[in-house]
C-alpha cells in the first residue's frame, strides 16, 4: 500500500475480502485522519456474474460517483458508447448502480463536487469563508480585527492577503476580547467593522458584544461553529451556538442572527448583515459552521453590486444644534453623526445613559428621571428589534413538493443534506410527498410570517446538528411551534443524505408511527457494513 500518496484527510476505498485486513495500518490511518471505506467489490462483482470479477472496477466507479455527488448518467453513456455488446453494457450498468447503491446505503462520506458547467469562466471554486470575506469587502468592510481559530481562520488569512486589494485595515490581534472591542471602536468611529471567530471566541467576546448592544454600535460578528462545548472537536461540525448567541452577554439588548444555507447565501447574507448592523445600529451575527466555512464549492461569480444601506447617518456638512445621540424616535433608531463633528460630541458608554449619552450610573442612579430614562432606553432599543423583525427578517423558504406529507424543518448549512434527502425521497416514493422549510434569518424570527408557513405543515420533523434542539427551542419560544419529531445529529460529521435516511428510519414520530414507503424499500439498509 502506498500510504505516502494518500493526502491527510483523504479517503481510502479498498476491496473488502475475508483475507485482507487493514488492522496493521490503523495507526497510520488514524494519524493521517484517513477515511476508510471497505467495499466487497469482488463479492459484489460475482453476484452479477461469477465469472467476471473485473466488474469490480465498474462497481468502484459507481461508488465513487456517489461519493463525489455526481450523477451516473454521464458514465452510463460512456459505457454504452464503449461496449457495443448489450449484455456487457447491461452487466456494467448493473455494476455501476450496485456500487452506487452500496454507498447510498452504507456510507455518509460525500464530497460535493458540482459537475462542471457550460460556462466555466463565470464560475469560481470557493468555500464559505471566502464568500463571507468577499461579501464583507464588497459591502464596504473597512476594518477587520480577528484572532485565528478553526474554522474561521481563513477569513483572516484571506483578507490579510488582500488588504490592499480591498482597502481594508486588517489586524490579527492578541485575543478575541481585543478583536471584538476594536471592532466596536471602529464601528463607533463609523466604518463597517467585523470580527470572525468560532465558539470559544464568541464566549470570550460576550462582554463586549453587550457593549455594542447598549451603545448601539453596528458591528458584524462571524461565528464559524465547530464541535463543542469548550474546545470540543475543532475540526468537526455542529450547529450548537444558536441559542448561546440568542442570549450571549449578560442582560438584555437587541441583536440579529443570520445563518447562510450555502455558499451563495454566505455571500448575500454577509451583505445583509452589514446593512442590518448599520440600519439598526446593533451587533449582527453570521452563523457559519465547519461544513460551510471549509467546504469548497463551484458557484457563480458573486454580484458585487448589491444594495448598501447605511441607515440613518447624518450629512457631516450640515449643523445639528439639537442633536442627541440617543434621540427617541418611532422606530427606536437614532441618527448617527460621526466624529469629528462639533454637534455630535458625546461619550459612548457601556452604562445606561440618557439621550445625550450621559451615564445614568454613579450619582445619577436611582433618581426619578434616571429610572424613567432606563425604562425608556429599554423600550427604544427593543423597538428597533420589533421594526427589524417586521421589516427585514425573511421567512423560511420551501423546497420540494407542495402540500407534502412530511416536511423537514432545518436551518443554515444543514439545508444541503436535507434538500438532497427530500429530492431522493420524492424520487423513490410514489405514495408520499416530501418537502423542506429552511431558515436563514434566525433572530429575531419574523413571527407572523413564520407562523403562516408553519401552519402549512402536515407532519414536521426538525433536523439540526446539535444535541438540545436549538431551532426547536427558538420555534417553541417565539412561534409556539412543536414538531412531530426531530433528528439531532451530534457525531461531528457533515450531515449527509445517507445519514439522514438512517436517522429517519429510526425516528418514531410522536403522533403515531408513520411508515414511509422509502423505509419499505430500503429494509436491508445497514450501517454496520461501514468501517
Amino acid at each position, binding site marked *: 500500500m502506498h500510504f505516502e500518496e494518500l493526502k491527510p484527510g483523504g479517503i481510502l476505498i479498498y476491496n473488502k475480502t475475508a483475507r485482507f485486513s487493514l488492522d496493521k495500518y490503523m495507526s497510520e490511518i488514524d494519524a493521517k485522519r484517513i477515511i476508510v471505506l471497505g467495499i466487497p467489490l469482488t463479492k459484489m462483482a460475482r453476484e452479477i456474474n461469477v465469472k467476471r470479477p473485473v466488474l469490480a472496477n465498474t462497481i468502484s466507479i459507481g461508488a465513487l460517483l456517489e461519493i463525489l455527488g455526481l450523477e451516473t448518467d454521464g458514465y452510463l453513456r460512456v459505457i454504452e458508447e464503449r461496449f457495443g455488446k448489450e449484455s456487457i453494457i447491461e452487466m456494467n450498468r448493473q455494476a455501476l448502480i450496485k456500487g452506487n447503491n452500496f454507498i447510498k446505503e452504507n456510507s455518509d462520506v460525500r464530497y460535493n463536487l458540482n459537475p462542471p458547467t457550460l460556462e466555466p*469562466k463565470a*464560475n*469560481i*471554486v*470557493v468555500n464559505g469563508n*471566502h464568500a463571507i470575506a468577499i461579501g464583507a*469587502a*464588497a*459591502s*464596504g468592510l*473597512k*476594518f477587520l*480585527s480577528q484572532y485565528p481559530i478553526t474554522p474561521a481562520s481563513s477569513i483572516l488569512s484571506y483578507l490579510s492577503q*488582500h*488588504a*490592499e*486589494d*480591498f*482597502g*481594508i*485595515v486588517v*489586524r490579527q490581534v*492578541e*485575543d478575541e*476580547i*481585543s478583536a471584538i*472591542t*476594536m471592532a*466596536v*471602536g*471602529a*464601528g*463607533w*468611529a*463609523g*466604518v*463597517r*467593522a467585523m470580527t470572525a471567530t468560532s465558539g470559544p471566541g464568541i464566549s470570550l467576546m460576550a*462582554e*463586549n458584544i453587550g*457593549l455594542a448592544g447598549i451603545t448601539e454600535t453596528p458591528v458584524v460578528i462571524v461565528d464559524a461553529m465547530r464541535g463543542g462545548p469548550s474546545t470540543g472537536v475543532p475540526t468537526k461540525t455542529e450547529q450548537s451556538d444558536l441559542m448561546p448567541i440568542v442570549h450571549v452577554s449578560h442582560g438584555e439588548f437587541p441583536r440579529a442572527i443570520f445563518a447562510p444555507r450555502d455558499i451563495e447565501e454566505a455571500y448575500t447574507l454577509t451583505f445583509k448583515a452589514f446593512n442590518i448592523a448599520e440600519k439598526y445600529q446593533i451587533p449582527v451575527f453570521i452563523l457559519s459552521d465547519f461544513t460551510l466555512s471549509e467546504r469548497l464549492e463551484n458557484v457563480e*461569480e458573486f454580484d458585487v*453590486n448589491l444594495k*448598501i444601506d*447605511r441607515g440613518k447617518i447624518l450629512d457631516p456638512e450640515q449643523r445639528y444644534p439639537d442633536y442627541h445621540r440617543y434621540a427617541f424616535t418611532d422606530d427606536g433608531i437614532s441618527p448617527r453623526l*460621526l*466624529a*469629528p*463633528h462639533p454637534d*455630535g*460630541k*458625546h*461619550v*459612548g*458608554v*457601556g*452604562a445606561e445613559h440618557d439621550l445625550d449619552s*450621559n*451615564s445614568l450610573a*454613579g450619582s445619577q442612579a436611582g433618581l426619578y428621571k434616571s429610572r424613567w430614562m432606563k425604562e425608556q432606553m429599554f423600550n427604544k432599543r427593543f423597538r428597533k428589534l420589533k421594526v427589524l423583525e417586521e421589516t427585514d427578517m425573511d421567512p423560511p423558504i420551501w423546497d420540494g413538493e407542495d402540500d407534502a406529507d412530511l416536511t423537514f424543518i432545518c436551518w443554515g448549512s444543514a439545508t444541503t443534506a436535507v434538500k438532497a434527502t427530500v429530492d431522493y425521497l420524492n424520487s423513490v416514493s410514489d405514495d408520499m410527498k416530501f418537502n423542506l422549510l429552511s431558515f436563514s434569518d434566525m433572530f429575531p424570527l419574523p413571527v407572523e410570517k413564520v407562523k403562516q408557513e408553519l401552519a402549512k405543515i402536515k407532519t414536521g420533523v426538525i433536523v439540526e446538528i446539535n444535541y438540545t434542539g436549538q431551532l426547536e427551542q427558538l420555534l417553541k419560544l417565539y412561534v409556539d411551534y412543536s414538531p412531530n419529531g426531530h433528528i439531532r445529529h451530534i457525531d461531528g460529521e457533515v450531515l449527509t443524505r445517507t445519514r439522514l435516511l438512517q436517522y429517519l428510519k429510526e425516528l418514531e414520530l410522536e403522533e403515531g408511527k408513520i411508515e414511509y414507503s422509502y423505509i419499505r424499500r430500503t429494509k436491508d439498509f445497514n450501517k454496520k457494513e461501514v468501517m
Partner: protein
Amino acid sequence: MVAATELIKPSDFKGGKPTWCPGCGDYGLQSAMRKALSNLGYSPEEVVIVSGIGCSGNFPHFQSTYGFHSTHGRALPLATGVALANPDVKVIAVGGDGDGYGIGVGHFIHAARRNLDITYAVMDNQIYGLTLGQASPTSQMKAITLTTPKGVDERPINPISLAIGAGASFVARGFSGEGAHLEKLLEAAIEHKGFSLVDTLSPCVTFNRLNTYDWFRDRVYFLEEEEGYDKADLSQAFVKSLEWNEKIPLGIIFEDEGASLQDLDRIISKGINPVKQKLGIDPAVTDMKKIFSEFK
C-alpha cells in the same frame, strides 16, 4: 485643528461636572490634560478620550471632547479600533491601575508592542477606588486594603519596568501633584509618534491612606534635572525604572523614535482614512477579475 484666531482654552475642554472626591488625584490629570491639549492646539471635537471602568474611567464624561467609556480593562483595544478607523482624530486612552495593569494588562503589553500612535494616561492610585478599596496590582507588598487584611502578598507591578520590558516606545511617569510638569509630559506623549505611556501618580484620598500626596512629595524628583540621564538608553531606563521606595523619578524615562503602526500599516501608511472611503467595490482600487481569477 483650528485657525489661530479662535484659540482653544483649557476651559473649552470642560464637560460634565466631575464626581470625584474632593482632593482626588484625578483632577490633576484632568487639568494637565486640558492644558496640554490646548497648548497643542487641539479643539475638543478632534479628540476622542477612551476609558475603561473605575473612578478614572469617568474621566471622559468630564471633558467636552468625544469619548468612549468602555468596559473594564478594554480602553486600549477600543481606542485602537477608533484610531485605526479614523486616523484624523486624536485618540487618548485613560484608565486606572486596576483597569490598565490588572484586568487589562494583556492589552497593555500588546498595545505597547503594536506601537500605534495613541497616548495612554493611567491614573495610578494603587487601589481599586470605584469598588471601595480593594488591593490593586500596584498596591505595595504588605499594604492593608479591604481584601488584604493582613497585607498584600503578591509583588506589585512596576508599570515603568513592565512597559520597558514590553518594548514600549515612550514611557513616562507624572504626578498629579506636579501639574505643570505633568502638562509637559502629556504634551510630549501626545506628540510622540507611537504608543506613549504616562503613568500618573494620582492619590486616592479616600481609600489609599499609604500613598498620599505627602508620601509622594517626600520622594519624587524630576529626571530632567538629573545630569547625564539619557532617555534613549534602554538599559539605563530599566535601571531607573527600579527606583521607587526611596526616591521616585518623574519624567520621560524612555523614548525611542521607531516607526509607529500608522507608519507601517499597509492601508493607513498610504494616507488612507478608512472612515472617509466610499463603501462597496471601487474598480479603481479593486480588480474583481483578479480576485475571482484566484478561484478558478
